[in-house]
């Protein structure tokens, strides 16, 4: 008998007093060697860049960089002066508002799609998560076309409708405001809440709700007193993730917030890092401020996720109860979900495609303004072809590496649970909390003196570091689904640990692992912050090209690059759905 006993969730714990099986290899046992190797990888890829980035906060600055003298000036000015505290406050308030709205709408849509008899469920489900597969930067370009006050397509169409009906409609939408920032960010973060919640709602045992209904409880009472409380840990978990993500995004608030004078801390980090006079120590110090929030959030999220695992009755049966009949409420429900799909998917896609086919930006669409020259140019420029190839290759490799590393780290955390493996898993996930820009700076400094610098491989390391957390957390949930008895019986029959992993764990966890693979691929295709600092002439990627062309004022060509990038991502989603019969929502951290 092994010295461990499986808990209800599958986590192995030592039984008090049990004798440990003698280990023939001691510290040199293959397991330990592998753990040591994984630790080195995590430290080199995830932790050292972070240390390098933070270290910069403690140097004296010149107008163009850092001196070799140590100083606490930047830390003081960031943490204790009103200027930076106001940027920090702006980031927090924006994060809070975006989170609250995203949670309300995301949970609402998850309830409607998972718990009611709304028609077209599968289609609505796919379209609701689609914004996750569009680069937020591409979405930003689209919303500038759609939501500008005087020339935006939305106000233009409304004005035309007004003219047709015989009255004038003043512009209703202006994306270049604080409200505009919130709007675009909510559209992009809603799917995270949706996925976190719907995973729980689908996996939840329906007998509790049926019991409530049998006892005479109404639909509303059942939803608010039974369904939502059970999902509360997942909702809180989603809230934290959205809060962290929305405080670290800088392009949307930075660009759209300027007319309102709204500056967030991450936009200030970008400006401090890139414009003269450079405030690199201030950027690093500001990064630590974001980091503390994110680390605290991550820690809280891990606790909540663990609680969620206790609360949620993952029985494998899924939701088998009778869906709530909507009756006449079917149309309002369809409008709620449909409105989201129109604003988050359909309109931005139309806008970005139109923009990519125009000679220049215009609120008036006439035949002579259209051209296919941007696409001709796209495929004729060798740099763009290289970017397309690099993007696909890096996405595939980052996905594969994150699956392998994530699976192994989680395996050891769950099946060989001790301080080392738990710490390893925590360190591996910490990078989810670090703004990409800060990470990019750390990576650049760490790898500057190595042959990796200037190659496409430094981008691969950055992607692996950034998305390894998904690999770890999602694999963990996949491994937890496999009862340790299966592995133990295989071991009793003489199977080696590797054989057990290969023949038992991987086949069972395969759908989850494939979902992780494609999820990391999609995230890598979108990554911009770290890539901007690390790319070189040998390693252009599509997201950086989009930024470079937009920054140079070539919005239409940037749109064409964005369209190709989006097609690439939607293609991946369709392949995972059709060829592998896997839904990418399996790759959420809520499982």
């Amino acid at each position, binding site marked *: 008998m092994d010295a461990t006993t499986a808990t209800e969730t599958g986590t192995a714990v030592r039984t008090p007093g049990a004798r440990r099986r003698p280990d023939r290899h001691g510290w040199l046992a293959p397991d330990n060697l592998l753990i040591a190797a994984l630790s080195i990888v995590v430290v080199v890829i995830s932790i050292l860049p972070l240390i390098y980035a933070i270290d910069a906060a403690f140097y004296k600055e010149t107008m163009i960089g850092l001196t070799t003298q140590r100083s606490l000036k930047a830390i003081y000015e960031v943490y204790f002066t009103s200027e930076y505290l106001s940027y920090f406050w702006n980031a927090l308030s924006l994060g809070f508002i975006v989170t609250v709205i995203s949670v309300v709408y995301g949970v609402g849509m998850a309830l409607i799609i998972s718990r009611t008899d709304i028609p077209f469920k599968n289609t609505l489900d796919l379209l609701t998560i689609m914004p996750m597969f569009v680069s937020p930067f591409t979405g930003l370009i689209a919303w500038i076309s759609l939501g500008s006050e005087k020339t935006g397509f939305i106000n233009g169409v409304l004005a035309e409708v007004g003219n047709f009906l015989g009255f004038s409609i003043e512009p209703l939408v202006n994306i270049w405001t604080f409200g505009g920032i919130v709007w675009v960010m909510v559209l992009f973060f809603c799917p995270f809440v949706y996925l976190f919640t719907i995973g729980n709602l689908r996996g939840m045992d329906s007998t509790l709700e049926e019991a409530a209904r049998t006892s005479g409880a109404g639909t509303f009472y059942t939803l608010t007193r039974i369904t939502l409380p059970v999902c509360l840990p997942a909702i809180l978990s989603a809230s934290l993730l959205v809060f962290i993500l929305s405080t670290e995004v800088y392009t949307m608030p930075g660009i759209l917030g300027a007319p309102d004078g709204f500056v967030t801390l991450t936009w200030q980090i970008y400006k401090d890092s890139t414009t003269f006079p450079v405030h690199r120590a201030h950027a690093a110090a500001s990064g630590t401020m974001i980091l503390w929030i994110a680390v605290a959030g991550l820690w809280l999220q891990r606790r909540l996720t663990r609680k969620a695992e206790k609360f949620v009755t993952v029985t494998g049966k899924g939701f088998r109860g009778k869906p709530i009949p909507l009756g006449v409420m079917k149309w309002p429900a369809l409008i709620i979900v449909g409105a989201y799909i129109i604003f988050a998917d359909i309109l931005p896609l139309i806008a970005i495609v139109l923009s990519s086919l125009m000679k220049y930006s215009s609120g008036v669409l006439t035949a002579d303004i259209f051209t296919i020259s941007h696409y001709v140019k796209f495929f004729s420029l060798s740099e763009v072809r290289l970017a397309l190839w690099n993007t696909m290759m890096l996405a595939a490799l980052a996905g594969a590496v994150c699956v392998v590393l994530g699976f192994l780290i989680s395996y050891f955390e769950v099946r060989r649970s001790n301080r080392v493996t738990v710490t390893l898993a925590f360190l591996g996930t910490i990078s989810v909390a670090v703004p990409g820009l800060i990470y990019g700076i750390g990576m650049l400094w760490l790898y*500057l003196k190595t042959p990796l610098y200037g190659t496409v491989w430094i981008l691969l390391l950055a992607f692996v570091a950034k998305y390894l957390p998904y690999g770890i957390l999602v694999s963990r949930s996949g491994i937890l689904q496999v009862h340790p008895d299966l592995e133990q019986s295989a071991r009793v029959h003489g199977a080696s640990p590797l054989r057990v992993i290969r023949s038992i764990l991987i086949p069972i966890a395969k759908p989850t692992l494939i979902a992780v693979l494609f999820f990391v691929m999609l995230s890598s295709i979108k990554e911009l912050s770290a890539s901007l600092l690390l790319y070189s002439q040998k390693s252009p990627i599509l997201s950086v090209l989009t930024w470079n062309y937009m920054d140079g004022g070539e919005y239409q060509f940037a749109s064409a690059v964005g369209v190709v990038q989006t097609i690439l991502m939607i293609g991946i989603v369709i392949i995972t759905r059709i060829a592998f019969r896997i839904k990418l929502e399996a790759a959420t951290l809520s499982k």
Partner: protein
Amino acid sequence: MGSNSIIRKAVLACGIAFAGALVPAAFTTASAAEIAADKSNDALYADAKAEGSVVVYTSNVLAGMNAVSADFMAQYPGITVEVTRIVGMQQYQRFAQEVAANQNIADIINLTDKPVLTELINSGDVARWKVPTFDRFTDEYKVEDGGYALTATIPVLIYNETKVTPEEADILRNSWAGVLDPRFKGRFAVQTQKCGLCYVGVHLFLDPANPAKLPDNFIEKVAAQEPVVYADLTNPIDRVIAGEQDFTYWSWEAIAATKRQSGAPVRFVYPDPTPVFANNYFSVSGHAPHPNAARLYMNWLASEEGAKSFQKHFNGATTLQGVKDERSFASEDWYKPVKTEYKPDFKRWGENYVSDMEKWIDAMSKK
């Protein structure tokens, strides 16, 4: 047993891979060879073909730089130009870090800051290289023999021709203070980016000699006109093209002309007096991995062919003397050239850049 062995081998392989990845680049360095100062283009080309490529770091618009490079490649087959866009101070930092780490990637750099460039020339990190047309550049447009401003940087007010009348365009052209005319309230865009071109207007406004004859508290008065403030230089241009704003208070002539060339309904005026200055220097890296190709490319950029290519693809005002202005807009009837040139005082620029920009940003933020 077999699988344990596989794990051990895998761990060992990973270890070797990581150790290999972390080997300092010092062991794999490439250093720039000494090139004779009078080496001819033919000799440079012969050696450049063996090098195969030239790596250019640029702050300029990517499409334009790619087009210029394509012209070079057409003239010198066998050499590939690889362009990486890294803007402003980021480029200096990256170049300086790479040099310090002996990770030499760039052959040509494209900096905007003259004092920084001077420092790099003196330290040897930027090569001293006299292009064959050296004497056709005035001192204003070169930094010793290490940096060449191939085009003059000129701010313009870009306006949407369907929104601004010719009469209004004249008001804007006649004086920087024209923007204070009540008719322009709420119709224009400004930006708060920090860059040389972004600063030059502020530099003029705060010139103690007041050559533009501006009223007191001019910046505050501009802010009182309620412009829409954008975070960077290109957003306002795009918004003017789209018709969202009527004109920018100020942008870059080269972008304005390129947009017009693409069919966008924009024109521009040079408000009087107009800063005309060097802010876009090309240099050969002192550690260029492709030293012959780099010098050949630099020679070509500074030649008449290069100047014409820049005119065609960038619409930049060439600084190479004796080259005719063949930019398409220069022959259009609405076009009126710069009336009075204003030369920035770079000493005051260096001393006051930070505080002046803060003053501008503060005023626009409080509008």
